[in-house]
Structures are given as structure tokens and as C-alpha cells.
């Protein structure tokens, strides 16, 4: 398979870091893995005998977290309140329930889930909808609790979330089913009516008697009239809606042509003589419906806001009751409840701390990279993460009234800025429609003077031939094919029209924390003061930092050998202390480490330094870097070469942001900004005529992602950002963003070709139709043929060879650009 390249992880397809030698046995063969997370998941898949997942899949999964998921993580989901709120009872003690899953990308995922979860005892049925990432479950909670199912899903990397019953899935389903019915009725009707029409054409050659001809006419009418009235109602309704609003839509001439042709044919059949157009009308409706269906499916695939909110909150909360703590689901919480939140957990609701003190990471909400200390009477916000300590929280605001929901609402408003393109298309369409209607009217009047019998066929031919079908189809089809091509690159597209705008981007706004830099930190430099062995120093630090959950500790995690540390203690906002082999050590802020020996210490240079000291004095300085993502340098260079203006906007402190900016050579910097400031920046640039692409990852980026012309989010980032983004970039590096920018002009070229083709067709066919050279059936064929041509042209974009070239290019440029990637942050 082409995606299993050398040096890439068999499971997630990302490059294997140097020094990692992990192998998992898949189907009896040792396959290289990039991390323990991938190793665990791949082994799990193999042990379940589902190794063929790797043959079926056509999109790469995200790198799974290394975290054992056990049923206890979801224990609150077994509570009766959850069952009664989210599930619907079915027969035989079974319940129906929907879960929203993360990371479902392709059919193989659905298959894997179906096999892996479907084998549980109490699961009667699990069906995964790949398009919206929902799992529809029918299960018996007595035999298999929901927590066990959830843990199974999570262990494969498909983290489940309870689906709010309010979500619009039912509406989407009805819409899709209705459309399918229209299409099939139109398709079957088309076959029937065309066979009668063909018989009539052949009969005209061979001499058909008048009765038979009349019979064919009547039967055509009997079939065509109900089919047109049923399948075409989509167009009539939409045309009517635009008309009563005093606007002109694409559907107005379309409906006019359909109804005019239909009723004139009925009139001719019953009372007069002359040509009838039943076959043309039905065919016209069928092909138009096919195009509309493609657009509908693409639109429904865009993420759902409602579930996004649920994803940023924890699965359950520990509520304090008279009998001690109990795990409850979020729907059971009420204002005034007290909940306990420990380190590593997400805060479930806005509230006030009534006990304990914690370090809270609010980076998802504010972009601030350093956790803040919160003590009694401080307010904390839902969605932020407790890094260190434990607290008791009294809930003040829940659900829709939290600050998190406020951001979600802001993002809803920002979305209204978006359809500028759509508005322009609507205005263009209105002009086009007005032009076509006038043209048809004029042609009809002129022909009425010359030859009244020709007036109707000419009007119909003009209306049908100028149907903006190819025009309307050309772009969506090309974009849909391109979306498939991009998925092969590891870039998932949730709003296809973004691809059209991507090549015209003039400004790029980037977030810093988590986007340009990795969320984890690492040791950039070691300055040992007494000629100590560096490996030994790293080992000591690694063991000491085990006690800490501060982000700085992540820099040392790789050096911990598991050796014993006595009296280990993490002191909030200072550092860690512990005794190793009988020697007491301290690691952390200079003032904290210096307390052991009594000498004061000063940081040796700019950046973020932590000191390791014993009673004898300073042992070493460690500089902690927040490393740039792989491919960051190449991305910035590439964008600059392409003539784009680059902005760095971050909620982080100015010194940190400036350091990254100067390292990458970005001149336009905005630091300390709230989500609203970022949005204001983007809107200011847009007001100056710029087309802005935003690349971000956090919840705080979500509103600005929604407001930008094109938005890209990293798959690793907050879910809410991902659902708002037009493009979601998988993988750890930024190389795939470069690849997306590189491929986009090709998409635009094909879209332009399609537009040119359909315009040429319409422009040349129109005069002929008006001159009376085109009978309506030929007009319908010409319309369909032009549509077919643009569809085939569009499909070229999904081809594998084209994508592979881009991927190799981006891989090599990412390698070249990634080397000196570390830089210090404070």
C-alpha cells in the first residue's frame, strides 16, 4: 500500500522519531510504530483479529494518546439519569443511544468499531455513520454497561461523547431520505418516459398509427405529471420562497422551464397537436437533483456545533454529598452543588473554589500558556484543566450559561460574517437569471411574430440550454474530489468551498501556543556548574519531576528511569523537592532551589531556566524550550515566498510571542490577545480587503477560525476548534499545511476550467437555442453532457498520483526546514 512508506509509523503514518524502535506484530509481521500509543492500539486491533483494518482504510488515523482507558473513566454513564436522558428504550430490555465519536475518518474505522464493539455481549447492534462520526447503538445495559462500551471505543482512539438529543441529526436524516426519494422517483420516471419517447421517435420513421401515438402521449403524461410534481417540488418551493422575498434565485428559471414545459405539454396532449416535452422535463429534474444531492451531503458533513461544546467538557464529575463523593454525569449537576476536581481533570462548570488550591491551565479558553494559581474564592471556568492540586468547587453556572458557551455563541455570530462569497454568488445568479428570463421572453416574442408554432419550443430550449447546471455543478464536484485528494494528504476538509478561497489568501494569521509550538516542552540546554555528568543530571531531574504535573515536567518525563525518590513533593509555583540515594535535591525556580544551600542564584540568560540544587549548591541549569512544530520554518518561508503577509496572534505574554516571531522572522505580532481581539484583527484585515487564513488549535481560536475566510485547525487541538475549521490538519507537524497550500492552486485551476467550460457552453448554446436550431430534447442532452464534462474534469483532483507527488514534496521540505527547531520560551 502506498501509504506505508519506509520510516513511517504503520498505524498513524507519521515519521518515526529518531531513536524509537518499536515494533508491533500485525498479521504475523513486525511493523514499525512511532510511539507507545500507536503500539497499544495496533496490538489491540491485531489481537482482536481485526488486522485487515489496515487493508481497508483510506484515511490515516490520528496518533492515539498513551493512556489506558478503563470502564471507571465513564462510570457515571451507567447512572439511570444518563439512560433516561440520552437513551430511548427499545424492545427486549434494549436501549437505543447515539454517541459522537472523535477521529472517525473512513469506512475502515466504521468496520473496526462494528467488529470490536459489536462483539460485546450486550451490544445488539452498532452502526457508525462515517459522514458525521456518530455511532448508533442498540444495547442491553444489564449485560454490558455503557461505560464498558465507551472504554472500548476510547481504547481504540475513538473517544466517545454523549450525543445531545437536541442535535439536528434527525432533521439531516429526513432531509437526506427525502432527497433520495425524489431522485429515485425522477430516475425511474425518466426511464419510463424516455422509453415511450424513443418508441415515438422510432414510430415516426416506421409509420405509427394515430391511435398508438396518442396512447404513447397519454401514458407519457400519466407518468410524467406526477413524477414532475413530486420530484420537482424542491425547486418549485425554493423558487417560490425566493420570489416572495422579492429576490431572484437559480431555481426561478429552472422551475419556470419545468412548469412551462410540463403544462404546455399537458395542454398539447389534451387539446392540441404539436411536440411535447415530457421526456426532457423529467430528465432535467433528475440530473438537477443528482447535483443537489451531492451538495446536500457535503453540507451535512460539516461539524455540529452542539456536540462540540460537550466535547470540551469532562465525561463525569465527582459530586460531594452527605455520604461522600460520587461520580455523576454532567446533566445531574445543579447550581450550588459542590464537586471535587483533582489534577489532570477538566473543570465541569463555572464556579467558585471553596476548598483547596490549584494550578489551572486556561490555555484552551485564553491562550495563556502558563497555568494560573487559583485559591479559595477565586472563580474558575468550565473547560479549563487542573494541572496541579485538588479543589472543591461550588457550581455557579452550568451548561449554556458558562463562559465556554459564551465563546461558542460568539463563534456563531462570527459565522455570519462568512457567507460573503455566497452572497456574491447569489447576486451574480440573480443577474444571470434575470438575463435568461428576459432572453427567453424576447426570443419567444420575436418567434411569435415569425412563427407562433416555434415560440414555445424556442422559449423552452433557451431556458433549458442556459440552465446553469454545469455552472452550478462544476465547482462543488471539483471541490468534493479535491476533498478526497486532501484527505489522502492528511488534511480533512469540512467546508469544501474553502478550497476555492485558499489560493487567493493574502494574509495568514497564526496562533502560537499549540500551533507553531508543540504543546509539550523539552530541555533545550544544560549548564552544569560542577562538571557533573549531564546524563546523571537529567536522570535526577527526571525522577524528581515525576511528582509534578506542571507543564515544565513534561520536558523531563523522558528521562525518568523509575528509580526511587523519597519524600517527593511538588510545591505549587516553585518546583519539586525529593531525596534520592539519601541526598536531598530541589529542582525549580532559582529562589526555591537556592533555599537548600542558602546561596542565591540568578538565571544565566534569557529564556526559561530551572535550577537543580543540592545542599552543596547549584548542580545545573536547565533551559526549558517549547519546541517549534516540525515544518514550522518551512511553512513560514513557503508562505512568505508565496507573497503572503503573516501575522502571529497569541493570547500568550509578549516576550514569549516576540521570541517565536523573531525566530521565524514574522514582523506582525499581536500578543496578550483575547479571542475577541483576534477576531477583531481578522475583521480589520478583511475590511482592508485582505483574504485571511487563520491557523489555530485552541478553543480561544474558535471564534476567529469561524470569522476567517479560510480556517485551519490542528487535529491535536481542541475539538471545538476542529469543528469550526474548514480544514483540519492531522499529524504533529505543519508540513501538511504547506502541502495544502501547494495543492490549492491546482484545485482553483480545475474550478476555473469548469467555470470556463460551462460559460462557453452556455454562451454558445444560447444564441442557437434562441435562433430556433435547438429542439428542447437536444437542449436537455447538451445540458447533461456539459454537466458530465465538468464532473469528469473535477474528478481528476481526487486521483492518487497527483496527491502522492505533493506529499513527497512536502515531506522533503518539512525535513529540510525542521532542524534548528528548538527555541526558548519563558
Amino acid at each position: 500500500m502506498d501509504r506505508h512508506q519506509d520510516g513511517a509509523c504503520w498505524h498513524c503514518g507519521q515519521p518515526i522519531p529518531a531513536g524509537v524502535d518499536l515494533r508491533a506484530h500485525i498479521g504475523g509481521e513486525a511493523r514499525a510504530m512511532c510511539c507507545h500509543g500507536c503500539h497499544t492500539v495496533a496490538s489491540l486491533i491485531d489481537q482482536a483479529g481485526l488486522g485487515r483494518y489496515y487493508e481497508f482504510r483510506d484515511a490515516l488515523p490520528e496518533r492515539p494518546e498513551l493512556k489506558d482507558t478503563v470502564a471507571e473513566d465513564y462510570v457515571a454513564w451507567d447512572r439511570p439519569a444518563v439512560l433516561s436522558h440520552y437513551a430511548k428504550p427499545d424492545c427486549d430490555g434494549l436501549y437505543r443511544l447515539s454517541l459522537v465519536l472523535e477521529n472517525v475518518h473512513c469506512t475502515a474505522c466504521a468496520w473496526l468499531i462494528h467488529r470490536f464493539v459489536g462483539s460485546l455481549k450486550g451490544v445488539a447492534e452498532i452502526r457508525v455513520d462515517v459522514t458525521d462520526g456518530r455511532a448508533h447503538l442498540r444495547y442491553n445495559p444489564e449485560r454490558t454497561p455503557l461505560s464498558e462500551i465507551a472504554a472500548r471505543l476510547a481504547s481504540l482512539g475513538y473517544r466517545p461523547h454523549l450525543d445531545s438529543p437536541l442535535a439536528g441529526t434527525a432533521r439531516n436524516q429526513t432531509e437526506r431520505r427525502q432527497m433520495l426519494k425524489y431522485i429515485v422517483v425522477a430516475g425511474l420516471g425518466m426511464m419510463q418516459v424516455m422509453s415511450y419517447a424513443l418508441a415515438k421517435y422510432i414510430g415516426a420513421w416506421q409509420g405509427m398509427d394515430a391511435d398508438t401515438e396518442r396512447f404513447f402521449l397519454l401514458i407519457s403524461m400519466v407518468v410524467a405529471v406526477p413524477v414532475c410534481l413530486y420530484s420537482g417540488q424542491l425547486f418549485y418551493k425554493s423558487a417560490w420562497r425566493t420570489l416572495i422575498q422579492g429576490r431572484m434565485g437559480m431555481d426561478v428559471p429552472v422551475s419556470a422551464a419545468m412548469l412551462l414545459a410540463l403544462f404546455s405539454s399537458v395542454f398539447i396532449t389534451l387539446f392540441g397537436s404539436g411536440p411535447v416535452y415530457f421526456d426532457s422535463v423529467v430528465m432535467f429534474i433528475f440530473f438537477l437533483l443528482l447535483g443537489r444531492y451531492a451538495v446536500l451531503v457535503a453540507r451535512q458533513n460539516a461539524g455540529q456545533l452542539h456536540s462540540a461544546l460537550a466535547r470540551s467538557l469532562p465525561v463525569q464529575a465527582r459530586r460531594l454529598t452527605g455520604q461522600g463523593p460520587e461520580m455523576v454525569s454532567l446533566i445531574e449537576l445543579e447550581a450550588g452543588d459542590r464537586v471535587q476536581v483533582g489534577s489532570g481533570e477538566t473543570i465541569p462548570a463555572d464556579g467558585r473554589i471553596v476548598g483547596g488550591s490549584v494550578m489551572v491551565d486556561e490555555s484552551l479558553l485564553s491562550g495563556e500558556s502558563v497555568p494560573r494559581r487559583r485559591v479559595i474564592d477565586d472563580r474558575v471556568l468550565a473547560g479549563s484543566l487542573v494541572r496541579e492540586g485538588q479543589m472543591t468547587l461550588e457550581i455557579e453556572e452550568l451548561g449554556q450559561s458558562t463562559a465556554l458557551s459564551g465563546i461558542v455563541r460568539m463563534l456563531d455570530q462570527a459565522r455570519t460574517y462568512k457567507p460573503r462569497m455566497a452572497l456574491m454568488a447569489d447576486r451574480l445568479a440573480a443577474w444571470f437569471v434575470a438575463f435568461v428570463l428576459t432572453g427567453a421572453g424576447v426570443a419567444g416574442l420575436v418567434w411569435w411574430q415569425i412563427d407562433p408554432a416555434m415560440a414555445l419550443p424556442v422559449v423552452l430550449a433557451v431556458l433549458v440550454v442556459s440552465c446553469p447546471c454545469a455552472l452550478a455543478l462544476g465547482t462543488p464536484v471539483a471541490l468534493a474530489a479535491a476533498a478526497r485528494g486532501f484527505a489522502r494528504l492528511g488534511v480533512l476538509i469540512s467546508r469544501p468551498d474553502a478550497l476555492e478561497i485558499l489560493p487567493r489568501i493574502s494574509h495568514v494569521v497564526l496562533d502560537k501556543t499549540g500551533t507553531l509550538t508543540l504543546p509539550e516542552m523539552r530541555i533545550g540546554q544544560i549548564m552544569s556548574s560542577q562538571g557533573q555528568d549531564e546524563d546523571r543530571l537529567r536522570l535526577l531531574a527526571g525522577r524528581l519531576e515525576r511528582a509534578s504535573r506542571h507543564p515544565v515536567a513534561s520536558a523531563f518525563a523522558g528521562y525518568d528511569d523509575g528509580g526511587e525518590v523519597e519524600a517527593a513533593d511538588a510545591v505549587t509555583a516553585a518546583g519539586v523537592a525529593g531525596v534520592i540515594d539519601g541526598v536531598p535535591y530541589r529542582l525549580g525556580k532559582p529562589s526555591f532551589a537556592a533555599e537548600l544551600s542558602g546561596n542565591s542564584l540568578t538565571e544565566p540568560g534569557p529564556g526559561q531556566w530551572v535550577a537543580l540544587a543540592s545542599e552543596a549548591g547549584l548542580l545545573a541549569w536547565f533551559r526549558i524550550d517549547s519546541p517549534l512544530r516540525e515544518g514550522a520554518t518551512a511553512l513560514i518561508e513557503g508562505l512568505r515566498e508565496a507573497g503572503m503577509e503573516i501575522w502571529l496572534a497569541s493570547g500568550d505574554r509578549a516576550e514569549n510571542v516576540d521570541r517565536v516571531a523573531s525566530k521565524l522572522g514574522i514582523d506582525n505580532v499581536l500578543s496578550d490577545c483575547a479571542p475577541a481581539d483576534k477576531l477583531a484583527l481578522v475583521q480589520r484585515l478583511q475590511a482592508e480587503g485582505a483574504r485571511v487564513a487563520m491557523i489555530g488549535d485552541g478553543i480561544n481560536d474558535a471564534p476567529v477560525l469561524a470569522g476567517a475566510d479560510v480556517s485551519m485547525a490542528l487535529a491535536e487541538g481542541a475539538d471545538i476548534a476542529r469543528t469550526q475549521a474548514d480544514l483540519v490538519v492531522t499529524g504533529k507537524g505543519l508540513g501538511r499545511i504547506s502541502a495544502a497550500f501547494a495543492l490549492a492552486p491546482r484545485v482553483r485551476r480545475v474550478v476555473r476550467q469548469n467555470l470556463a467550460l460551462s460559460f462557453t457552453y452556455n454562451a454558445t448554446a444560447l444564441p442557437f437555442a434562441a435562433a430556433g436550431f435547438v429542439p428542447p430534447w437536444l437542449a436537455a442532452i447538451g445540458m447533461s453532457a456539459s454537466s458530465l464534462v465538468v464532473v469528469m474534469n473535477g474528478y481528476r483532483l481526487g486521483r492518487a498520483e497527483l496527491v502522492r507527488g505533493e506529499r513527497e514534496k512536502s515531506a522533503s521540505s518539512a525535513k529540510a526546514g525542521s532542524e534548528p527547531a528548538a527555541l526558548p520560551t519563558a
Partner: protein
Amino acid sequence: MNIIYVLIPLSVILMVLAIAFFFWAVKNDQFDDLDTPALDVLDEDDEKDRGGEG
């Protein structure tokens, strides 16, 4: 040629039946998931060890 007066209305009735059958299939979730069933064929092992009854 008189046979067409029987056969063609018959074809119309068949079409109506086909549409009715399709509507029934749509109503019973047959067209909601068009992706995964394609892979079910590839499963060699039988389904008897699947415990979910119902």
C-alpha cells in the same frame, strides 16, 4: 400491436411498485449507511460468536 395496451400500463404499475418498495427500504434505514456494508462481505469468519441477540 394491441398487446402494448396491456404491457405498457403493466410497466407503469411495476414502476409504482418499485417506487413503493424503495420508499419502504428508505423508511427502514436501508440507505442511511452506504459505506460499511460493503466491507461486511469481506469478513470470512461467521457471526455465530457474536453474542448480541435481539
